[in-house]
């Protein structure tokens, strides 16, 4: 650690950043030294990317200081951060599809001669960078034709092609194969050898232990630890990253659920010749749907919500059959969808909490009738939801958790019996997660029924009474949630033998 005698290249002092009500970073301090590959890790939503975006000039901290080489730096825009010597490979791809590979590589730092672009020099430089980084791409190729992996490689080349002292790589290896990761490792080590500082954001333990020398762990926006890699084991690092009591998150399940169907689904099919699913959702039950991404979970939920046409099959609510392909009919029968994309599909971001909730009961009012408001009802619901913000506040300014609560409040006000919930706590911070689980459980305790899709297996296991596992559009397993394990569910999701007629 000879480098420690000098001053740190980058120093963050007590930086905080909030988005609306959601505190993404709470007083984080961190120092990065020259000649170091510094891993920044933590769970999803720990604040890793936000922290790096402060350095990249995308966000400005609400409080705290950023120092470069001991001097306070104002990095208000990405262009300024670059000029200050910070080069960033963002997690989101920023390749422009209508530019050539060479143009993308040099974007924002084009070579000019006499005020005009020096196209020949630009191309020569691009060829050099591609050669040096060992990335085999034709500089004249239009980037719209690149695959995601190729785009990521180009992002990396772009990040390396810079006169920077600090390099940030935010989850650069997601779309890369093994050989490409090895290649990246070599490039990072070369930077380290030149005395540069590399911030490497990742939650892949293997990569962190392979080529990083220092690790910083964040959790829920706060700094947990910064340690040399030698001082840590994989288990020790994981403990730093999680260290949260999962059990306390979930409310208790009811001991037994009477056999009263809220929704009977028979031979529901998303495509004319595809597999059909049958299951029964009982009153008082939270039924989960697990599976790998894109195995038909979404289609099942969307067909039940009437949002997507169905090809055969029947759906019966408590009293009547529900016609296909009509959201309006589904809602009339007391079935409501809480979509995954709350901002795009669920909420009116510019309207207040009150207006968003009030849309629920409005559904039962004929169009030509006056729509008197009942502020007391909204207040009661907001209280029940634990919404502590004034009801006049626009929903767009709320945190993910509060948005989910507002959406839930709308359907409770509309008096629905069945909730279809996609990714109930995506983008919701931990504190609000527990509240949402509690609210969902209360809804079923009062006789409602919930069908929940989630990619988060521990969440399904903790929250549900029963879990269906889907694969290739068919139901392959139906297991009680109590006592289920992630391994067991994953096993069903991956294995090939089918139990598609397993019904409740």
């Amino acid at each position, binding site marked *: 650690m000879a480098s420690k005698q000098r001053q740190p290249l980058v120093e963050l002092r007590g930086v905080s950043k909030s988005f609306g009500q959601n505190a993404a970073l709470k007083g984080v301090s961190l120092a990065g030294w020259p000649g170091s590959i510094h891993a920044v890790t933590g769970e999803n939503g720990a604040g890793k990317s936000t922290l790096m975006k402060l350095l990249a000039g995308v966000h400005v901290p609400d409080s705290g200081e950023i120092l470069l080489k001991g001097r306070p730096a104002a990095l208000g*825009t990405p262009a300024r951060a670059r000029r200050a010597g910070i080069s960033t490979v963002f997690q989101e791809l920023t390749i422009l599809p*209508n530019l050539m590979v060479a143009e993308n590589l040099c974007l924002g730092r084009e070579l000019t001669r006499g005020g005009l672009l020096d196209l020949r020099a630009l191309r020569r430089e691009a060829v050099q960078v591609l050669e040096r980084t060992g990335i085999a791409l034709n500089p004249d190729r239009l980037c*719209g034709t690149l695959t995601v992996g190729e785009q990521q490689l180009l992002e990396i080349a772009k990040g390396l092609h810079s006169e920077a002292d600090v390099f940030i790589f935010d989850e650069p290896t997601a779309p890369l194969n093994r050989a490409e990761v090895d290649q990246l490792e070599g490039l990072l080590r070369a930077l380290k050898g030149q005395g540069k500082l590399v911030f490497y954001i990742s939650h892949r333990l293997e990569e962190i232990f392979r080529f990083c020398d220092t690790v910083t762990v964040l959790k829920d926006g706060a700094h947990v630890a910064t340690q040399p890699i030698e001082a840590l084991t994989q288990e020790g690092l994981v403990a730093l990253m999680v260290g949260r009591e999962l059990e306390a998150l979930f409310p208790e399940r009811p001991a037994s659920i009477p056999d009263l169907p809220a929704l009977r689904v028979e031979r529901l099919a998303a495509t004319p010749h595809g597999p059909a699913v049958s299951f029964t959702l009982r009153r008082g039950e939270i039924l989960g749907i697990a599976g790998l991404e894109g195995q038909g979970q979404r289609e099942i939920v969307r067909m039940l919500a009437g949002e997507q046409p169905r090809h055969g099959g029947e759906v019966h609510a408590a009293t009547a059959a529900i016609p296909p392909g009509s959201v309006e009919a589904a809602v009339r029968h007391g079935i409501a969808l809480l979509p995954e994309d709350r901002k795009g599909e669920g909420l009116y971001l510019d309207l207040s909490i009150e207006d968003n909730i009030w849309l629920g009961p409005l559904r039962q009012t004929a169009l030509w009738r006056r729509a008197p408001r009942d502020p007391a009802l909204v207040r009661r619901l907001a209280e029940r939801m634990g919404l502590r913000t004034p009801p006049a506040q626009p929903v767009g300014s709320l945190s993910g958790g509060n948005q989910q609560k507002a959406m839930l409040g709308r359907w409770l006000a509309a008096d629905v019996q069945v909730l279809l919930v996609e990714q109930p706590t995506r983008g919701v911070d931990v504190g609000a997660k527990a509240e949402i689980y509690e609210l969902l459980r209360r809804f079923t305790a009062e006789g409602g029924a919930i069908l929940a899709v989630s990619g988060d297996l521990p969440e399904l296991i903790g929250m549900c009474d029963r879990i269906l596992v889907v694969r290739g559009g068919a139901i392959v397993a139906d297991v009680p949630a109590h006592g289920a394990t992630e391994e067991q569910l994953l096993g069903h999701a991956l294995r090939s033998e089918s139990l598609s007629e397993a019904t409740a």
Partner: protein
Amino acid sequence: MTTKTPGRTGLTRYTVGLPIVLVLLLAATQADFRSPQNLLNFSGQIGALLIVALGQLFVTLVAGIDLSVGSVMSLASAIAATQAHPLAAVALATALGVAVGAANGLGVALAGVHPLVMTLSTATFLQGLAYVVLPIPGGAIAPALGAAATGQVAGIPAPLLWCAAAALAASLVLRRTRFGAHLFAVGGHPRSAYLNGVRVQAVVVGAYVWCSVAAAWAGLFLAARVSAGDPALGASYALESVAAVALGGVQLTGGVGSVAGVVAGVLSLGLMTNGLNLFGVSPFMRGVLTGALLLAAVSLQRRRIVGM
């Protein structure tokens, strides 16, 4: 990728083919079309549209639209008609273009006003101003300007030279300057461009300024050709410039387009007008056809050129 993508020029065989087909058709059927006098008229007729459309191209590349170009032309001609000195007319018209472009650009880029609303507002504002400056067509254009717009240089008609100069200038800026490169970047994906250190707002303002200055000069050109100012001179040009740009394969959603395409689009519109004259069709049919062509051009635009 099995199909050949037109890349970021937006040129397809339709954009290039339409003017060629029109030329062949007219040359084959109308003897008058081939007369030198008609060709001279033709270059004069399309000159103003070409200059405006090349301005509109820049705004379209950053996914904007400028409906105020017509009013800028009218006001520029009204101002020119009140100035005795040619340089004063040019300087005032240029200043007008810079001011209007800056207002449009700042409104769109900084205040976040939708381009349609922003430029429709300035269009209305400037149209009113044009009637204040010059209530009825008339006034006098400095003779030097008239000569510059109608004369000949070494046997080549001046309008043709102006067209060439405009196309060359636009082409140079688009291909050989950082500003040009950044126009494509911003049009491709503003956020990605921003993350790559492109000053998105400055680029957008620059595009609108370029467009308005082009419109002001087009107004001067047209006024000089008829030797008078007219407060309604540019009325039809806002939509015609958009139609020409769309016919030229420029994506109205930004990021794809070329000078060659705009030239092709302007030629198509101009040939159509010229052809209708020669065939003796009512000039009002021109509006009907322009509208139909604009709709066809926009509907035929592929959403996903170069994977955007």
